[in-house]
């Protein structure tokens, strides 16, 4: 079967073409069937490839010559290795479930078929990306994935925010893409090849100077930073939530944003060869993890909370990779894909049932009204909070362990703190949505069945995937077999899982005290209004301490960081754009319509050329 792996991406491509051609004529059911059939075929084949790869741990490579550039042959083709197989499985599985879910979520949309067409295009690009054997091909599909994301974020063209978000996503990720492209060019220059295997061989043989390796690795990492929404290029990801929720679940939680992590993992030998690059990855990752987790505390839009959470979790994966935790990073990528997709789909169900309301201040009390969605959301929340024995617990543990064993104690401690915050903000979300009483104006409606069962499947995976690497290290061994990366299989110190579990529970408990029991401020965040110090204030003195000392300060930090995010980071981007547009204005002013001025500019240009380049020769 592995020989036919190249067919996997083609199913969604065919679906895309069919959907584009029949866009106007297809009914919703037919369009959804075509889209779902495409990814289902990919999923089946991916499973088959995965099973075969489990038995025969050798990579399969098939390429054909594409182009010769100055004696160097550039090829195109596929390479099926352990990481690729895993990604194939994750991407096609989540895609399949989201495709099914979207049948219900997008019901009644005017451009229903187009939506499926874009989703299929994205699936094609993403599946092709994980099969690419060389940097150029990765780059090509990397861009195509970005195009898919762009189209889908801006899918609701009637929303000005969606249009702005699509544009922003495109521009911001482009910064990363350019860095990645420079890395490719640099690699080509220094190695003379774009094949990953040859690049790795060159690194291993010491053909590349250490600083070159570092430069290439960091440039690749900047590309990953753009795609994976790491600081400081994360700003597009929360805005991208303007897209339809299935898109957020598939692209901006499970697959595309993980492509950055995938890229770092795919080029891991480059990073291993450069301690500086590893440091950069680790510190950027852990900073993003804590930074985004803090901001998530003060968000009021259900999807934005999850978006910042995604940024934070991707930061986890990055710092795992930076701490030599190759397996831990990939492991978390896998588990996160499932539980975050679950959370997003559940959030989508909540949004549907609240009649497209996304503000959590307008929700509440939904547990009673829709227990199924509530329990599914709870599973996702428990998984991300790291409660055993759900999948998130194992993968997060593995990450923290990697940081600890790598001797990165600061990273480790910050990671622990971020884990605590994660438990806190996700349960804040949970309690505000499902606890208390309903605060919205619109009546709550029911959720279509077709949206529920994909969530159930995801919930099963969110619960169970942790056990692929526990109690044995089967997953780790399989993943690294034959690719020369050492998996850490040292035994876990007993205090780590225990401590983490306790910390998660404290976080959940605090969220319950503050938001579940409704004992403190019911008023919204970001508006520090007068608190209802009633009689209760005395009674819950402890809560007040918590609130004042701990939560307030964290919230304050969150607000400060949010402001930093909005004004400094975005301001920088705006400043550069301003300078460029100012230059454009000057150029435009010079173009005053007067032919004589144009000739004068040319004459001055000639004089400048003479003076700057030939003065020494002409006027000796």
């Amino acid at each position, binding site marked *: 079967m592995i020989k036919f792996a190249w067919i996997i991406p083609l199913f969604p491509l065919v679906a895309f073409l069919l959907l584009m051609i029949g866009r106007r004529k297809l009914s919703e059911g037919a369009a959804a069937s075509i889209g779902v059939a495409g990814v289902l075929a990919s999923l089946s084949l991916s499973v088959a490839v995965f099973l075969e790869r489990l038995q025969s741990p050798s990579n399969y490579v098939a390429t054909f010559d594409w182009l*010769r550039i100055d004696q160097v042959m550039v090829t195109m083709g596929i390479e099926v290795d352990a990481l690729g197989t895993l990604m194939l499985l994750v991407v096609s599985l989540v895609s399949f479930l989201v495709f099914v879910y979207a049948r219900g979520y997008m019901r009644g949309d005017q451009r229903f078929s187009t939506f499926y067409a874009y989703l299929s295009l994205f699936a094609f690009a993403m599946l092709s990306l994980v099969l690419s054997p060389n940097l150029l091909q990765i780059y090509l599909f990397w861009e195509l994935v970005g195009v898919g994301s762009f189209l889908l974020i801006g899918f609701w*063209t009637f929303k000005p925010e969606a249009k702005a978000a*699509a*544009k922003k996503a495109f521009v911001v990720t482009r910064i990363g893409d350019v860095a990645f492209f420079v890395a490719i*060019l640099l690699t080509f220059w220094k190695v003379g090849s774009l094949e990953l295997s040859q690049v790795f061989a060159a690194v291993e043989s010491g053909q590349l100077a250490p600083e070159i390796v570092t430069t290439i690795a960091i440039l690749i990492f900047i590309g990953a930073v753009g795609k994976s929404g790491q600081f400081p290029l994360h700003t597009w990801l929360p805005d991208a939530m303007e897209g339809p929720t299935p898109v957020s679940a598939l692209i901006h939680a499970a697959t595309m944003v993980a492509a950055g992590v995938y890229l770092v993992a795919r080029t891991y030998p480059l990073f291993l060869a450069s301690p500086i690059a590893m440091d950069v990855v680790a510190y950027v990752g852990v900073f993003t993890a804590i930074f985004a987790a803090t901001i998530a505390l003060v968000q009021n839009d259900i999807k934005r909370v999850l978006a910042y959470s995604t940024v934070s979790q991707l930061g986890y994966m990055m710092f795992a990779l930076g701490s030599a935790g190759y397996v831990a990073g990939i492991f978390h990528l896998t588990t996160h894909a499932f539980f975050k997709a679950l959370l997003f789909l559940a959030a989508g169900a909540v949004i549907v049932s609240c009649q497209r309301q996304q503000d959590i201040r307008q929700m509440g009390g939904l547990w009673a009204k829709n227990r199924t969605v509530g329990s599914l959301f709870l599973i996702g929340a428990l998984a991300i909070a790291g409660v055993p024995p759900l999948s998130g617990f194992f993968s997060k543990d593995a990450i923290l362990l990697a940081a600890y064993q790598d001797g990165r104690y600061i990273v480790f401690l910050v990671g622990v703190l971020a884990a605590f915050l994660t438990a806190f903000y996700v349960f804040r979300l949970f309690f505000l949505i499902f606890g208390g009483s309903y605060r919205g104006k619109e009546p709550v409606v029911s959720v279509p069945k077709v949206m529920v069962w994909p969530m159930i499947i995801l919930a099963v995976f969110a619960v169970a995937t942790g056990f692929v690497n526990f109690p044995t290290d089967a997953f780790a061994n399989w993943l690294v077999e034959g690719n020369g990366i050492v998996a850490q299989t040292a035994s876990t110190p007993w205090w780590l899982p225990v401590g983490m579990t306790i910390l998660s529970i404290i976080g959940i408990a605090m969220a319950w005290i503050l938001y579940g029991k409704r004992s403190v401020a019911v008023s919204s965040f970001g508006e520090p209004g007068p608190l209802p110090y009633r009689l209760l204030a005395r009674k819950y003195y402890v809560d007040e301490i918590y609130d004042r000392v701990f939560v307030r300060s964290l919230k304050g930090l969150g607000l400060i960081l949010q402001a930093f995010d909005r004004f400094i980071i975005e301001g920088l981007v705006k400043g550069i754009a301003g300078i460029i547009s100012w230059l454009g204005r000057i150029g435009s002013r010079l173009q005053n319509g007067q032919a004589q001025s144009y000739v004068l500019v040319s004459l001055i240009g000639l004089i400048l*050329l003479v003076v700057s*380049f030939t003065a020494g020769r002409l006027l000796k």
Partner: protein
Amino acid sequence: METNWLDYDWSVMLPEATIAAAVLLLLVIDMLMKKEQDRRFIGLLSLFAVLAAGVAVAFGFGKEQTLILDGSYLVDDFSLVFKLLILGGTTLILLSALSQEKSKEIDYKGEFYYLLLAATLGGMVMVSSADLITLFVGLEILSIASYILVGMRKKRLESVEAAWKYVVMGSVATAFILYGMSFLYGLTGSTNLDVVAERIFEVTRGGYDSFVYLSLLLMLVGFTFKAASAPFHMWAPDVYQGAPTPVTTFLAVVSKTAAIAFILRILRNAYLPGLWSMGEWQDVVSKILIAIAVASMIIGNVVALRQTNTKRLLAYSSIAHAGYLLVPLALFASIPQFIVGNDVFFGSIVYYLLAYMLMTTGAFAVLTIIERDRQDTDIRAFAGLYRRSPWLAIAMSIFLISLAGIPITAGFFGKFYILLNAIIVRNLWVAGIMMVTTVISYYYYFGIIRQMFFRPPTESKKISIPLGLAIVIVIGVIGTIGLGIMPKWVIEFVEGLSWY
């Protein structure tokens, strides 16, 4: 003993002879016809002539290099490739013009076709000559025919004004070229490029290098005018906007191709051999060309950000593309074994020109349809195109994506290839500027895409797409995507040719 001029192999001039005969024939037919008669067949005849000339050119490949009359006419692989490009571009323009018969875009139908053919003839002569006099005459045929073409829609002020600006600045450029050529002649006593090259070597050693540079710089001013690159680029936006759209396409595609070939021919055949061996080329000429290229990239892309008229926007884009095209030209002699590396550099120029031709004619064809429909070339005219005609919007997006250099299109690969050139010669900062300006360009190309996809249409009437334009768009799309996926065919073909 001197060869009698009848002894030369005149058959190699068949393509030019075909076009020239067509010009004369159509001119006579047009004059004899009555005013109200249908002139569509003139367009068909000219299309036929161009295709016949193209076939004749294609048969020329693989033969020995032929030289007539001391280089006043030269047929080698270089000229054949560029002639194919010129004829291909003309074919696409004729196809788009043919379907405009009924519109008022062109008031004088018969004249349009034979003037276009005459301009094409000028371009072909330019690329197929190794003699300054022939080069000059070819250049002037192209220029004068273009001046007239630009001004043909004389009922409209902007058309005539554009023609006026074009003729004034074009004549100044001609004066500079001619003045530069006079010094070149004075130094070498010959107009034959091979002789010139030999003697430049001698006179540069003999202490006349300042005259060599003077001639080069004066000519460069003229060259940059023809190629619409800095510092003599400022005519382009005004003229592109004012000219009838098929003529704009001609200026952007065919005229630029001929100009690039012209620059290549003179620099490489006349100056390079003399200056290279003394290191002067790398020290001076290469740097001047890089400065021109960099300035064009920056000016074109930055000022384009402010444009709201699609034709002006594409004009600035074409200035930027001229900059990209000059990069391999500037760098190709910078490596020690430049003769070996040459084919890579020529490959990238020819590939880029081909990609540029396909995507630009395609984009202008879509623009023509929009212009017919809305009587407007502002980018607002594209609003909601996706709703009204999705395929047209998708085709336009492909062209724009390719112009912006995003994969998987010919434009991306062309830029990638040029970047590799820059990297092969270790010129990283040129590569850097190229990348940065490319990123800036995304913004304005996406401005049009945003209009098409994200803005509501102002009217819901279906857009009719005439057959000729549809063919051009389909060719453009297939070419842009096909070359992006399979650049190998073109590149291997081009690199397989003998460039000396």
